[in-house]
């Protein structure tokens, strides 16, 4: 890509829809990550307190 083509790609009217699809993709990944993290943390909060035996060492 020449310098001018690269610069033209920054032009305000270029490829806005593609950017939206990209954003949706990123948002979906973030939501999945958050859901996973919430679930792990919920699990950690609910988990019964294990009985800890004194480590002889």
């Amino acid at each position, binding site marked *: 890509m020449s310098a001018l083509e690269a610069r*033209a790609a920054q032009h305000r009217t270029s490829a806005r829809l593609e950017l939206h699809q990209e954003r949706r993709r990123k948002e979906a990944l973030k939501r999945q990550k958050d859901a996973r993290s919430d679930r792990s943390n919920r699990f950690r909060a609910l988990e019964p307190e294990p009985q800890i035996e004194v480590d002889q060492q």
Partner: protein
Amino acid sequence: IGALELQEKQWPELLGQLLKNMTTKDVGNSNLTKTSTLEALGYLCEDLEEEAVDQTETNQILTAIVDGMREDGAITVRVAAARALLSSLVFTRHNFDNETERTMIMQVLCTATKSPDEQLRIIAFESLARVAALYYEKLPQYIEALFTLTLTAIQQDKDEQVSMMAVEFWSSLCEEELEILEETNSVDQSRTLSHRQCARYVCAAASHIVPVLLQSTLVKQDEYADEDTWNLSAAGAICLGLVAQAAGDAIVPDVLAFVESNILHAEWRRREASIMAFGQLLDGPKPELLTDPVQTAMPVLVRTLKDNHTLVKDTAAWTLGRICELHAQRIPQGYLQPLVESLGGALQDSARVASQSCFALHNLAQAFERAPRSRETNALSPFFRPLLTQLLAATERRDWQDHNLRGQAYEAVNMLIQNHARDMRPVVLEVMQVVLQRLHSTFSTVVVSQDDKEERYQLQSLLCSVMQVITRAVDKDIEPFCDHIVALLLQVLNNEHAIASEEAFMALGAIASTVEQAFDKYMGDFFPFLIKGLRNYADWQVCSASVGTAGDVCRALESRILPYCDEIVRCLLEDLQNPTLNRQVKPAVLSCFGDIALAVSGNFVKYLPSTLQMLEQAAAMKISPDDEDLVEYITVLREGILEAYIGVVQGLVIRASQLHRLHDGGGSPFIKPHLGNIFQFLEVVVNENGDDPSLIKNSVGLIGDLATLLVQHAEEVSVYFRQNFVVEVIQEA
């Protein structure tokens, strides 16, 4: 061929032979030979990797090229030499370190900017722009000369392409300075020393450059160019935006003076240029400096949406969109009604203006993103229904294809729905009915040509995106409509079109996350599509979306996913092993193993050997600090590995407690043999990704989960947990 062969050191005599052409005097048509030779050298330089050429060879190439650019040479030879020089600049760091050689190259380039041949002038300015980016630190000796040459060319050159390349020099310089300032900023935060210094040339020269951009580029619009045409006024506008970012407050008075004296000018070019200048100024200076100007400009910009020139209206709508994007909090409450009503009115203007109006409405709606979702009402509620009606009408205009109007209008609909207040919920549900009806109709439209087919899929993809957004936005209120929605989404998947399928998968993932266990009734029909998606190696975005949806479904269904697990796991393992599948998909695949393990807990045991083996293989990937993309990829991959381990370990804890064996460490036999590798991986993450909060959070989370699982084996496993890095990362976290 030469570029390939030289890389492998397989054609050592090539450069010698080419260079000989440049010195031989008795060749029949020596100018033609020299031109062809320089072109060949130029193409070689374009394709060669920097390390493929040693210094002696670089020197020889450069000597031949500089010789070719001599003023007394034929113009064809000089142009070919200039092109070759432009391509070779990336190899000439060593020569740029040497003042004599550097000055020689710069002199040759500066002389070429004044050549009578416009091609040569264009290439010379492009080369100077590249020098600014590659060798910024070497510019002090030359910046004054470059300043004069570029500004003269922008103002006086008869050829627009030459002026555009001279503008490009300043755009490149701005970008370089912004990059250095960003580096310095991040270095300051991490309290280490910065390697590069920003000389702030742009700031120093701003008072000269800005008037030139305003008077000699922005007003040179081409009335008949379409919106994507790259010309002098577009180049000047982008450059002004970059100068605003690099020089900040310094340019505010000059730009505002220009805006003030031209915004109501009788000549449309002046009106458009002034609005464009204002729009470009909005990102860079301190926001508080723009509060008054934004408030003063708003009523004028709103009125300008009814200007008699399309380009002026287009730029006014764009600038209002930028204000909504960057300075929404500076819009006084009383201005909202005229703004929204005028933008709504502009949706009936030409497709170009209507599309720009969608952009502005999208940004206005986005400004409400941070408002609490549960809020009963917000400032947009009074306009919500009419705006959605107007936007949905815009998607069905006869000229919907022009300027991507339909896509822009649906994206604005999405943003409005995403940020709606509680009182507008009934309107959102009405829109959902319209969208379902439209999606339903796409299956019965007459399709004749390939273009018709493509159009149908594009529309389905947009409608699926709205369905996804509505599902997320209305949460449980979606439940009564799910049967209908899922049936249509499955019909979309049945078309096997990449863009539409990706959006349909994401919408189905949203539904699964919302209705949770109730998604079970759709699994029988959905499952074959899910498997097909997971095996879609050609369209990696579809594969990626289906992996994400598989994770959503696992979290939603929990143990009810069990009957489908064998096949899902088989597909995921194949995805990981497939060398043709885009690597971007693989971290999500690893995370998905975590989702499955947690969903089916004890039943995951049968997949453990293959899963753990793959996690260990993935964990063994090393970072090469030279490859920035790889560094970023490995960070994401490590996040996936950690999420997978967390899911697996937590699943084993559940299994142990279900078997009432937590007390005696029921899951430990499976994980104990892998502890060495897991902790080795954790140590690498802590050492190499210590500044990434998400990775560190998951690392300490995993350490805690492992401790829970292995608590009854403390004596045996304590050696892992007592390592220095473990103690340190917990303290740090």
